[in-house]
């Protein structure tokens, strides 16, 4: 499906074509820290369809447990995470951060990865008191 996205302040904009079946949650501790929350939601987009429309993200190079280096892109103005990708030329995917995708309402995760470091309370989230607003 065709998607487009933007960071919170609007400086970064992008578009691409993703496979909704490949949307995943990542519970790894790197994603917990880099998102500041419990897990990340990612939607891979091939470099052949991914296009940056505006802005220039800041790149942070992270080294994972595997030793692999990954570029983590975020907006230099509002800090919103945008994507990760292997350094260097393609062919490759960009793992978009689904919260920045305008069509996120239509994206349902099909896989959860790194479940060994999942925050325990997530399985009982329906028991946590809920308020429609604040």
């Amino acid at each position, binding site marked *: 499906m065709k998607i487009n996205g933007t*960071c*919170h*302040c609007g400086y970064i904009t992008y578009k691409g074509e993703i496979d909704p079946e490949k949307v*995943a*949650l990542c519970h*790894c501790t*790197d994603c*917990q*820290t*880099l*998102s*500041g*929350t*419990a*897990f*990340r*939601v990612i939607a891979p987009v091939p470099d052949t369809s991914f296009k940056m429309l505006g802005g220039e993200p*800041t790149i*942070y190079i*992270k080294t994972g447990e*595997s030793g692999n280096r990954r570029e*983590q892109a*975020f*907006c*230099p*103005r*509002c*800090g*919103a*995470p*945008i994507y990760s990708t292997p350094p260097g030329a393609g062919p490759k995917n960009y793992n978009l*951060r*689904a*919260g*920045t995708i305008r069509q*996120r*309402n239509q994206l*349902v*995760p*099909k*896989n*959860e*990865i*790194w*479940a*060994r470091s999942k*925050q*325990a*309370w*997530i*399985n009982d*989230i*329906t028991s*946590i*008191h*809920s*308020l*429609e*607003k*604040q």
Partner: protein
Amino acid sequence: MKIHASCHCGYIKFEGEADPEKVTVCHCTDCQTSTGTAFRTNVPIPGPSFKLVSGEPATYIKTTAESGNPRAQTFCPKCGTPLYSTNPGDGPKPSYMVRVGILRERDQLTPKVQIWTRSSRPWVNSLEAVRKTEKGLT
């Protein structure tokens, strides 16, 4: 309880005193975009307990709240990790809303309330059905 925060690259470090009973999940659309994921997890710490140990956070003033209130959102300028939100401007702050994912003690912090659930991702309540792997995709 005492909390210790660090961004992913280690440039920013701070400490404070948090009440574990006040951990919240925020499902508002601002938090979805600013984290790039489904919701944020927050814990407030009182201003007097906040101690910046190293680094200088970048600040983004968000003005899109339904209330109209501007809010300072901070992140690490080197790795992008979200840190906390607080009142804009200089001087002492009454409190800081700290992003739980950056805390050494995060495994001990269970949310007690969820807010702005009118915009929550419906699938968050039915994760049992999603295929899981202990490590990365195989």
